[in-house]
């Protein structure tokens, strides 16, 4: 393909070979070469980016996957984007399949809404558009001052279920906690399967602690004005884990967007096994699989964990053969092609329900 005529270039801002795998797959599908650049860490741990070709007047796509070292990956992206901006690139579009800090998108006590901070930083560095996949909260799109395309991995995961899970018609889609119910329901609808929701003590993690301050307060503070008697808020009761829906004699498929700390998933799998599920699958878009995850999965009742290649996880796969990968480079490449040609992206969203 004649690179000069195509008018767009694709760069990868990652510095390790494992992280650039996805970028290579995408450029292969597009039939272009990855742009020449050098990204590395100096001995004093500063990130250095050198763009080795002219980008003047061109549309540039920067593909950035987020490996273990999140902050360095963010810095690499910012430095490359700014380098391209000051080199007169026309448009700079970030392709960030897994958007980091998306779980820190709500106000928590005296915390910071890091996602908003990150959005401001990306805008300042020169990005004009972002393509991402399965944002943890769709409202994050509102943090950005430029367009955000939130692609979905569900068609790929649905296809995997239909092709690779034997006897999938006897399966039931399970939401590990009430917050995942909407996504689980959209899968269940498209596969024409039943739905089950789990609820209870182990589920009370960060998602419920959105704002540590309750108004009115749960606990009476002694430092209040005497005479100001506010009614107390009732503290939440933590019921034992229950499964709403029947999983007896079925294959249980737990669906979520991110699989990171697997303790919740392992506990859920135990319960489902007790309630009669004979096989347990976990489908998640972003397989972060931090810390001890591979070992815990290997020792648990889970049969298979299926994730996409938005987050590099080769190391975890070596430690745990239950982890399977679905390649999503096709949809990312297609999105890049359509954006460059100014075509509609509606086709990529044709099978997506409103809750996905």
């Amino acid at each position: 393909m004649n690179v000069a005529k195509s008018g767009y270039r694709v760069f990868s801002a990652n510095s390790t070979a494992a992280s650039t795998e996805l970028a290579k797959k995408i450029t292969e599908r597009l039939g272009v070469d990855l742009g020449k650049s050098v990204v590395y860490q100096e001995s004093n741990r500063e990130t250095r980016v050198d763009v080795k070709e002219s980008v003047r007047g061109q549309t540039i796509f920067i593909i950035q996957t987020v490996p273990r070292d999140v902050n360095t990956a963010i810095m690499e992206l910012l430095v490359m984007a700014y380098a391209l901006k000051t080199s007169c690139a026309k448009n700079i579009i970030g392709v960030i399949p897994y958007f980091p800090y998306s779980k820190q998108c709500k106000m928590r006590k005296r915390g910071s809404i890091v996602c908003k901070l990150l959005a401001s930083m990306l805008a300042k560095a020169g990005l004009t558009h972002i393509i991402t996949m399965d944002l943890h909260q769709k409202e994050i799109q509102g943090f950005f001052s430029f367009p955000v395309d939130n692609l979905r991995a569900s068609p790929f995961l649905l296809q995997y279920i239909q092709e690779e899970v034997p006897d999938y018609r006897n399966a039931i889609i399970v939401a590990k906690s009430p917050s995942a119910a909407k996504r689980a329901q959209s899968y269940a609808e498209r596969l024409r399967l039943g739905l089950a929701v789990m609820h209870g003590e182990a589920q009370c993690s960060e998602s419920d602690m959105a704002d540590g301050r309750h108004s009115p307060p749960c606990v009476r503070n002694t430092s209040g004005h005497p005479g100001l008697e506010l009614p107390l808020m009732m503290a939440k009761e933590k019921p034992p884990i229950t499964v709403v829906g029947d999983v007896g004699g079925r294959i249980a498929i737990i669906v979520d967007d991110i699989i990171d700390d697997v303790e919740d998933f392992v506990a859920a799998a135990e319960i489902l096994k007790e309630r009669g599920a004979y096989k347990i699958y976990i489908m998640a878009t972003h397989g972060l699989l931090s810390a001890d995850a591979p070992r815990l999965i290997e020792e648990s009742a889970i049969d298979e964990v299926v994730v996409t290649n938005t987050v590099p996880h080769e190391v975890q796969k070596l430690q745990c053969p239950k982890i399977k990968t679905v390649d999503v480079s096709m949809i990312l490449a297609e999105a890049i092609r359509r954006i460059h040609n100014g075509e509609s992206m509606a086709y990529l969203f044709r099978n997506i329900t409103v809750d996905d």
Partner: protein
Amino acid sequence: MPNIKIFSGSSHPDLGQKISDRLGLELGKVVTKKFSNQETCVEIGESVRGEDVYIVQSGCGEINDNLMELLIMINACKIASASRVTAVIPCFPYARQDKKDKGFFDIPVDNLYAEPAVLKWIKENINEWKNCTIVSPDAGGAKRVTSIADRLNVDFALIHKERKKANEVDRMVLVGDVKDRVAILVDDMADTCGTICHAADKLVSAGATKVYAILTHGIFSGPAITRINNACFEAVVVTNTIPQEDKMKHCSKIQVIDISMILAEAIRRTHNGESVSYLFSHVPL
């Protein structure tokens, strides 16, 4: 002092503690941690509403992590209605890739100088200081070095790289006289220490009796410590803008100048609305 809070990031907690001790304050409570997916999480542990907040974070160690932590802490303080947030960044990262001059920032910048502390150290620790030569290891540091030399009323010298032919390696040439004198190399930062070790060799072969190196920021990455141990320095002196305990265990030549009082005084003056320029030429006690 009312309405002031000082927080320390995780890059250099020792310096943060020293600064707050000098100001007679307690360090503000903040929890900085990393989730298992390596994302940084910051939670401010006390009210900062309406306060003048100072966050001490140095650009050292894992720079990108520390930078992110600083940004998140600043953001958290702003969202929690702090009246003003000032970042105290003793060693400013990425300074060699950009310039840290005032014109590049949209916000006020106070660039303090370690020079007064350096002058004090020289007078107190080098007996022969009245007869020494201050040397710059490259042409770029000439201004810095002449300023110190003038205040001590001693001579200066500099080393510059000369390339005789296109493919030849740079040759280092000493401009000035160090014969039978104590030579004091002065520079702003030492990273891999290739330059200053070459310079030290040069000075010894030109007749210097002793060679000291005084550097504001001691980054000391890669082969730096080995190089210093093998080189002929009497002492390598750095400030504590970057934590040095670990490095000092591996290298007995490293000594540290404490600059926490300069930073503390700058914070005090900024908080009280006084002039900071006094600090450009004086070391607070």
